[in-house]
């Protein structure tokens, strides 16, 4: 139909700060709209991750079973998969819970079984937490890493621009954690 590059963004266990930094490209979004088609994203309404995606940016660590399935699906259907931000790259704050041996049970106990609550109980009609929160590359192959908490909008723009021009981004001296 069109020659636009098909881009998706996915939000797993993170704070959405990386997506906000994506929007911090400000007026450059208007130029970007000429070159890309946003085929799947939490800021768009398509609900099923589509086939044949050119570039997928993923924010957040993998922390529950639904997210793991989503990540695998995104990998299968994307040519280039990018870990966006420190939670995706290292686990970061989302993985702080890993310090507890059975962290899924421990965090649930603290939040939902406290005696001061009405009906204290473990919610069970919700996606099951994984025992540990993990970075993306422990579950699937990742092609690029953009660290940062969040990555600066200029860096996101640089990586996208290079990829759209068919070049491999040179991250040396550009990427930084935190």
């Amino acid at each position, binding site marked *: 139909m069109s020659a636009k590059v098909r881009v998706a963004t996915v939000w797993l266990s993170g704070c959405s*700060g990386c997506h906000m930094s994506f929007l911090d490209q400000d007026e450059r979004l208007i130029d970007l709209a000429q070159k890309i088609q946003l085929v799947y994203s*939490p800021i768009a309404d398509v*609900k*099923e991750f589509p086939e044949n995606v050119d570039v997928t940016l993923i924010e957040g660590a993998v922390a529950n079973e639904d997210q793991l399935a989503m990540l695998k699906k995104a990998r299968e259907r994307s040519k280039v998969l990018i870990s966006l931000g420190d939670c995706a790259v290292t686990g970061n704050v989302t993985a702080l819970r890993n310090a507890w041996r059975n962290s899924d049970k421990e965090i649930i106990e603290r939040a939902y079984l406290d005696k001061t609550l009405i009906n204290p109980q473990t919610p069970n009609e919700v996606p099951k937490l994984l025992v540990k929160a993990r970075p993306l590359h422990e579950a699937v192959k990742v092609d690029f890493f953009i660290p940062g908490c*969040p990555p600066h909008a200029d860096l996101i723009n640089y990586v996208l621009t290079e990829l759209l021009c068919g070049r491999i981004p040179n991250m040396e001296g550009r990427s930084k954690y935190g």
Partner: protein
Amino acid sequence: MVKEQEKSKQIVISPITRIEGHAQVTIFLNNNDTVKDARFQVTDFRGFEKFTEGRPFYEMPAITSRSCGICPVSHLLASAKACDAIVGVTPPKTAIMLRRLMHMGQLIQSHALNFYHLSSPDLILGFDSDPAVRNVFGLIEKDPELAKQGIRLRRYGQEIIEKVAGKRIHSAEWISPGGAKWPLTKERADCLIAGLPEAEELACKTLKFWKKMLGQFDEEVENFGNFPSYYMGLVTPDGGLEQYDGPLRIVDKNGKVVAECVDPTTYADFISEAVEPWSWMKFPFFKAVGYPEGAYRVGPLARLNVATHCDTPLANEEFKHFKKLGKNGIVQSTFHYHYARLIELLFCVETAKNLLNDPEILSEHVTSKAMVNTYEGVGFAEAPRGTLIHHYKVDPEGLVTQNNMIIATEHNNLAYNMAITQVAKKYVKAKQLQEGMLNRVEAVIRAFDPCLSCATHAVGQMPLDIKLFDADGKLVDRKLR
């Protein structure tokens, strides 16, 4: 709340998109296919309250602000205020002014984000428009000038945060217990002052644009979460609109003040929380009334409902008109969150102007220094979406022993369920299910502007998978989009 209904028919909308978080809606049907009930379900959880145990208290602003990338500043402020209480000092006046200024920046960017980037695709492109382009890029194609206004307004808010605290998102290095780490330079202040006229013009223009459009939405005003409830929010000492500090006020459906929490450490006397098996988001309620009857709302609509005036001239004029939409100054339709949000946006631009034009904003004394003096601290702030509470207990070394966070979006949890049930009953016709019907259910949630990233401290993605079960639980129809 809703009881277990294994045998009834259900429609599941998942994920709810163009909100800041991960959720799904399950709609329950009667045997004759009319809507019986609906549930708003939050489907992930990160556990900040647990994994912050044992951390030094001064790390708390940096860690807890990672709850949310949209309103990290609210977390920084509520956390820093709880830490102020632990060290037992009052920050210097300039530090408080700068914290307020940064807060205004965040409210401006977040409100612009909700209106332009997330809600306007429904409001301008239409609830029934093509879902493939019903997003901010679709808006850029349809009306680039309007999209640009939204981008500019959000950008100005983000720039305030960046100039004050060094970074647009997660600017945790700047804030500290007892104040802030560095002052505002004149050069940076001048840069922000230069941007004020455009920001004020855009805020007024957006409000004017919305008031002109409002006539098209009589049906939505009537049916999008239009019900009585309690409302909660901070107010100034004389009852004005407030977002940083002050008594926490609760009013009833008639506008009567039913509670005022002056000492933050007593918040648990006023509100309590319940748990349901079908959501990771807890259900706070007004304790004096009980669960679930004590449902209350927070956020822009609630803040205007609990306030008697605004302390800035342009916003106060708009506020007076707004108050006339309801009885006794209480506006109860959830759809009017949009209108309230835009009035508050204007208030924030005006407040930023007042702060920037006060010479004291440039004072270099921005930190009061002290060690741990109190073993407990509570901080309140009005996040864009409503009252945020951080409550820490520490040991004598300042290591956290207990952390409780009640997040803006959580307070509205009971109200979400009331609102989506009302919309589903009005619009969802199960025999001829259409995408636009379900988008309206999502749209009422967007009006609240929930930030589930905050509320659950986690988010994720799933396809929209609408499943229709018959009364025996057999799958009779399924739609994917």
